[in-house]
């Protein structure tokens, strides 16, 4: 799966795109990111799966695109 990273999260993760071995679901993805990038804990972010915002655990499949997005600040 592909992980897109936006806004301030690019400073924490150090890139705007990662290709990951498929985690089983969005919660496992968040847990593995937190382990690798502990400062994510201090940041509120949303997760979009294939451009749809997700709040609950969703299974992940081959070819999925997940976006990590901090609060929007357009305009």
């Amino acid at each position, binding site marked *: 799966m592909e992980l*897109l990273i*936006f*806004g*301030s999260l690019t*400073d924490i993760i150090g890139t705007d795109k990662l290709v990951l071995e498929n985690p089983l679901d969005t919660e496992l993805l968040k847990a593995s990111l937190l382990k690798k990038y502990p400062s994510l804990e201090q940041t509120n972010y949303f997760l*979009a799966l294939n*451009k749809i915002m997700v709040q609950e655990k969703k299974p992940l499949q081959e070819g999925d695109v997940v*976006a990590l*997005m*901090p*609060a*929007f*600040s*357009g*305009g």
Partner: protein
Amino acid sequence: MEKTPKNIFFEGPIPAQKIADDIQKHASKKDIGAHSIFLGQVREDQIGDGQVAAIDYTCYQEMALEKMHQIRESLFSKYALTCMHVHHSLGRVAVGEICLFVFVSSKHRQAAIEACTELVESIKKELPIWGKEILNNQASVWKQNQ
């Protein structure tokens, strides 16, 4: 097949001339009686011991365009609008330059004014766009919307 959403993104600042030209283009649409225009300008905020010199905008383009398409559809069904145009900058926009141009037209003023206000709020709340404020002391801060 679904229609490709209209692109709203504009590289760099939006020139004042574009705003004038866009108004002029509507002269041929003779059922319009009211335009409501909102312009966002980059403000020279004081942040710590630095001042904002510019904002660098980035976005999740595909998602932003899909979301914008939904916002557009919902406003067209709620208000009696003739047309709606949105232009948001990407990349660097300096202090004093225009980063957002929203242009809503209708037969009568109330629909244009109300839809324009609602549209600006939706753009700020719902579109995945991020601004990084570049300060005059070499520092930078991720912008937070009020």
